[in-house]
């Protein structure tokens, strides 16, 4: 192993503990070497930051369907959007009443299963809004940096009228909420399928109905982690 190789082996944690300790001392005593180490740590971090979002993104259906072990289809926004484009002309009152019916079921489930805690939504003037705790989580949670909140954010995007929308998954329900002034208007609420905890394929939504609703609502692409963060900083306007 030449000196260059040893330097990188040290940086990659490939030296034995004794060798690493000795090399560490050399780096500490040599500003040039220390600077190079920093440069290469940054390079590695930059590579990870660029590629890691690929590993966090939903897997396209054409790939995930090959190893689908349950019947549920993972979410594919592009596909949902294509279906929407195809259906756009025929999207009339009957479909909206279907959405409304789903909403009612959603509310019923939401209030029933959350009896001890607060219901996730409230109704005001015929509109459905996120109640306080769901609203707070929609305000503060980032899909790119999930906390221990009970609600996990799926995708964030703008709808066709320009309002920011976010899909969310709670323990019992998942849904879609869009910004209306300073509040989150809930556009859809669906019962969460069983056993969704920690399943990476659920990143974009919980139920097929939610995926369809996202597909029918979204304009453009879902926000990247950076866009999501800056939208939060601007108060989701």
């Amino acid at each position: 192993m030449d000196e260059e190789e040893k330097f990188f082996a040290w940086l990659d944690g490939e030296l034995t503990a004794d060798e690493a300790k000795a090399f560490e001392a050399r780096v500490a005593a040599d500003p040039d070497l220390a600077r190079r180490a920093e440069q290469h740590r940054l390079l590695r971090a930059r590579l990870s930051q660029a590629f890691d979002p690929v590993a966090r993104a939903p897997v396209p259906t054409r790939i995930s369907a090959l190893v689908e072990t349950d019947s549920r289809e993972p979410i594919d926004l592009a596909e949902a959007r294509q279906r929407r484009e195809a259906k756009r002309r025929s999207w009339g009152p009957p479909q909206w009443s279907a959405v409304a019916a789903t909403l009612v079921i959603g509310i019923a489930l939401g209030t029933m299963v959350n009896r001890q805690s607060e219901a996730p939504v409230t109704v005001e003037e015929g509109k459905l809004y996120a109640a306080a705790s769901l609203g707070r989580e929609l305000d503060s949670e980032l899909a790119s940096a999930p906390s221990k909140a009970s609600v996990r954010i799926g995708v964030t995007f703008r709808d066709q009228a320009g309002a920011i929308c976010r899909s969310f998954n709670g323990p019992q329900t998942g849904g879609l909420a869009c910004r209306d002034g300073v509040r989150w208007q809930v556009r859809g609420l669906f019962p969460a399928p069983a056993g969704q905890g920690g399943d990476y394929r659920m990143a974009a939504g919980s139920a097929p109905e939610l995926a369809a609703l996202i597909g029918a609502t979204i304009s453009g692409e879902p926000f990247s982690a950076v866009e999501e963060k800056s939208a939060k900083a601007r108060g989701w306007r």
Partner: protein
Amino acid sequence: MDRSASFEQELATLLPRLRRFAHTLSRNGADADDLAQATVERALRSRAQWQPGTRLDSWTYRIMRNLWIDTTRSRARKQWLEDPPEAAEHLGEDPREAMDAAMDLKRVMAAMQRLPAEQREVVALVLIEGFGYRETAEMLDLPIGTISSRLVRGRAALLALMGE
């Protein structure tokens, strides 16, 4: 759970990482997903060759790497007849896009493309996928010293390309 179900389930949990590895090797996202799809299809067809108890990730990565080499070779042959498939991808002029993660991915993919294939795969496996030198050497059937020396050259080239 029977053996075939556990194979599929384990493969399913690998998909996000496989897609990432495909992106480190490929010219663009569409090629990467073609490669990921071909890899999963091949893995499913060859599942009898996988030894339960050994690492499924290394086994599948190796399949992907071999498919990628095959594609690269056949593409190189065709390029006698075709124009280069892609000039430098157009980068948007909107300054906000410079911040965008997708744009960053494009830039870094373009830099990776400039590395010789033999350096690119080693850089991808060690620096992005996080495999150790020995695991990488075994996956690629190369001596560990070759891994070290390719890493040295690949990193120097990337640092120059991405100009920190």
